[in-house]
């Protein structure tokens, strides 16, 4: 491997057995400097078939989805359902710090690769297991999916327009939320290793933790609004457009946050203090939510006199938070993303050069970054199996033929 600047997690090795639903977990730690080895079955991760594709060609090396979520990893193939595969995995686990998997309850245990098995050969191992619905309980055999897990998380009912179907958030929200929480736990377990003298096991049920990951306030808000003998709170609905209204400008839409009276007064000032907006009832946030469609009809006349940038800056000067709704090209070319060097040029042997969103922070000592492009299927087999485990190239030919790698 080429030498690179040290990251905060440089020196740790992570074996990543997850598919598309857990890929973001090890990806995040790879950006932080960990040596991540993605282990795919010889047929390849199913994430390789998820669109969008390079030139719309549905080829396993051309899935942007796979390529984005598996950057900063090396990749090998291994069939852990074979005896030789199990042995090879154990050899890798001896030298690893972390194993991440999302096969489902008991799968690894049944192969003899569960936490208790790996711990015997490497007491320092940290093993994180994702499940959709936990390892036992009434939903144990339920199936999840991106939209189903998002629906269950309690966020979907608040997303989109009132009266229309609740709207899915782009990406893989429930899985990514669980992945990020698992990263916190994995690093905590690594941090605690010298203190407790060994590794530990981490369990992450997407159904259980997605609400903590995405929006934990739904139950507390409901619970706080219950009064003994009082009426039940209004059912939660989709209020994005009335709480945080969206208005058109000359060149695109803006979103306005006027929660406090002072913010509302500032907004009226930004718009030139028109009489129709100075009526006292508009000062009430609750009134504005209840009459958001009337307010929109009035607002249009004033907001469309500005560009996104003009009204954004004026809002800042007067004290009302406003933001432009950027499309994807505009954010890439925005002065803030540029000033922070946020987008990272990465070259991949099949899809070529692209700009990738990088880690969302700048560090003074150990800057996280995309360490490498995503691996081609089995790209690092020789590097890992021969150079590290001492197999010969001839061995690899035999193992390939036998369906082990």
């Amino acid at each position, binding site marked *: 491997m080429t030498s690179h600047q040290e990251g905060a997690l440089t020196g740790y090795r992570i074996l990543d057995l997850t598919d598309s639903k857990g890929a973001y977990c090890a990806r995040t730690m790879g950006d932080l400097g960990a040596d991540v080895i993605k282990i795919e079955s010889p047929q390849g991760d199913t994430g390789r078939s998820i669109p969008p594709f390079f030139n719309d060609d549905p080829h396993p090396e051309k899935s942007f989805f796979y390529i984005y979520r598996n950057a900063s990893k090396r990749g090998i193939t291994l069939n852990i359902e074979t005896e030789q595969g199990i042995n090879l995995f154990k050899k890798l686990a001896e030298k690893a710090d972390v194993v991440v998997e999302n096969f489902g309850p008991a799968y690894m245990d049944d192969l003899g690769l569960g936490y208790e098995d790996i711990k015997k050969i490497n007491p320092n191992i940290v093993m994180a297991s994702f499940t959709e619905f936990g390892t036992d309980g009434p939903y144990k055999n339920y199936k999840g999916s991106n939209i189903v897990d998002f629906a*269950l998380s309690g*966020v979907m*009912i608040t997303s989109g327009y009132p009266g229309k*179907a609740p709207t899915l958030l782009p990406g893989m929200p429930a899985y990514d939320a669980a992945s990020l929480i698992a990263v916190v736990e994995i690093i905590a377990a690594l941090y605690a290793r010298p203190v407790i003298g060994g590794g530990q096991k981490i369990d992450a049920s997407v159904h259980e933790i997605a609400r*903590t990951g995405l929006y934990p*306030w739904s139950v507390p808000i409901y619970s706080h609004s219950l009064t003994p003998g009082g009426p039940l709170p209004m059912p939660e609905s989709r209020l*994005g457009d009335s709480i945080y209204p969206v208005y058109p400008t000359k060149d695109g839409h803006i979103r306005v946050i006027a929660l406090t009276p002072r913010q509302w007064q500032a907004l009226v000032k930004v718009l030139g203090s028109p009489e129709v907006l100075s009526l006292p009832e508009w000062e009430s946030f609750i009134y504005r939510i209840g009459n958001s469609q009337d307010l929109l009809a009035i607002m249009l006349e004033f907001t469309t006199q500005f560009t996104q940038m003009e009204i954004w800056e004026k809002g800042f000067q007067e004290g009302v938070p406003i*933001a432009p709704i950027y499309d994807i090209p505009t954010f890439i070319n925005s002065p803030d993303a540029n000033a922070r060097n946020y987008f990272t040029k990465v070259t991949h042997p099949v899809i070529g050069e692209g700009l990738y969103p990088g880690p969302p922070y700048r560090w003074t000592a150990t800057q996280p970054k995309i360490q490498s492009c995503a691996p081609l299927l089995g790209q690092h087999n020789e590097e890992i199996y021969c150079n590290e485990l001492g197999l010969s190239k001839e061995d690899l030919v035999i193992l390939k033929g036998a369906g082990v790698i």
Partner: protein
Amino acid sequence: MAQTALQDILVLDFGTGVAVPDGIRLLAELGAKVIKIESSKNLDFVRTIAAEKNSSAGFNETNRNKLSIGLDLQTAKGKDILKKLIEKADVFAENQRGGVAKSLGFDYESVRKIKPDIIYLSSQGFGGGGPHSDYPAYGPMLSAGSGMLSIWKHPDDPYPVGSNSPLPDHMASKQCAIGIMAALDYRRRTGKGQYIDMAQTEVAASLIGESYLDYTINKRVPEPKGNRCPYAAPHGAYPCTGMDNWVAISVFTDEEWHSFTKAIGHQEWDEDPKFATLLERLKNVDELDKLVAEWTTPLDAWDVQELLQKAGVPAGVVQRAPDTMKDPQILHDNALVELDHPIVGKRLYPNVALKLSGTPALASTPAPLLGQHTDEICRELLHMSDGDIENLKKEGVLESPDIQPK
């Protein structure tokens, strides 16, 4: 008592809203001692969106397991007390309005002079270093400012409106915890602290990276897909009985499709050339969605979830709070916890999400009242005398709760 991962770590939470305070709560659950730095003059803004500053559901959820010191940082004596706390701290995290920490004299450069190996995390909406670094920003503006909101809508919606939730706030908070944890581990191995400057727009953009590749490589501006999936049908949220109740259903494989048609009693669809294969189902997805909605409309969302899941088809109620509170798996997992808060009383919250076998996370304790631990912190951590504490309270430097617990 079992050991915790962060048992000797002291974190100063000079945060507001969600992005920093929610991330710091995870550190508290991992065993760190967390002190929230606040005052009546500079309230965490989530305290202000409630009838009383100690009765905000959002605040009380976000700030569990923390201590609160009421400290006026506009005063010289208040600054001195914070400096003494910094001497003992491992982590300082802030997401005050851009420029506020600096104007108070607690930016990274100032804090590291007091504690050279401090880990200092700052989170701003658009991040530091750009033209909008100092612009106040709330989560819903940052899904807007990152490109994420532009594709968060149905194809026929006139423009995107997002959600009641402050996303990406709660994802940014996890990145905040990740950054601090990794920096702590690096410090343990090298002795070096550092400064982490997070941008919430970047957190949002990093969750939809494949869309950015589609633009930068295929030169195509990604179109919003709403609930549609290019490789599954049906795939969406379908209406059920009652007001605004919905169930999410997704059918990916042929096996799932056959299970689906059998379970809902429409096996004739298997033979219908419009729906027999995934390709046909996707071509005729508008008609398919209409038929599925006709089937779900007279049914209870919970019944649809159970019927389809028993048949092996992914389905789930589009939950709101009362659904979550009766969800049998959530109850089985103990995923909600009742806490008795001195002002708002017994209320429900999501339980601790962290499940570590060797260093178990701490059980939840209620969020602090503003200044609830002022005396304790000053006495035990800063070894101040009761007389000094009383005098500083009279001067308005220190603050204790101004409300009597029930």
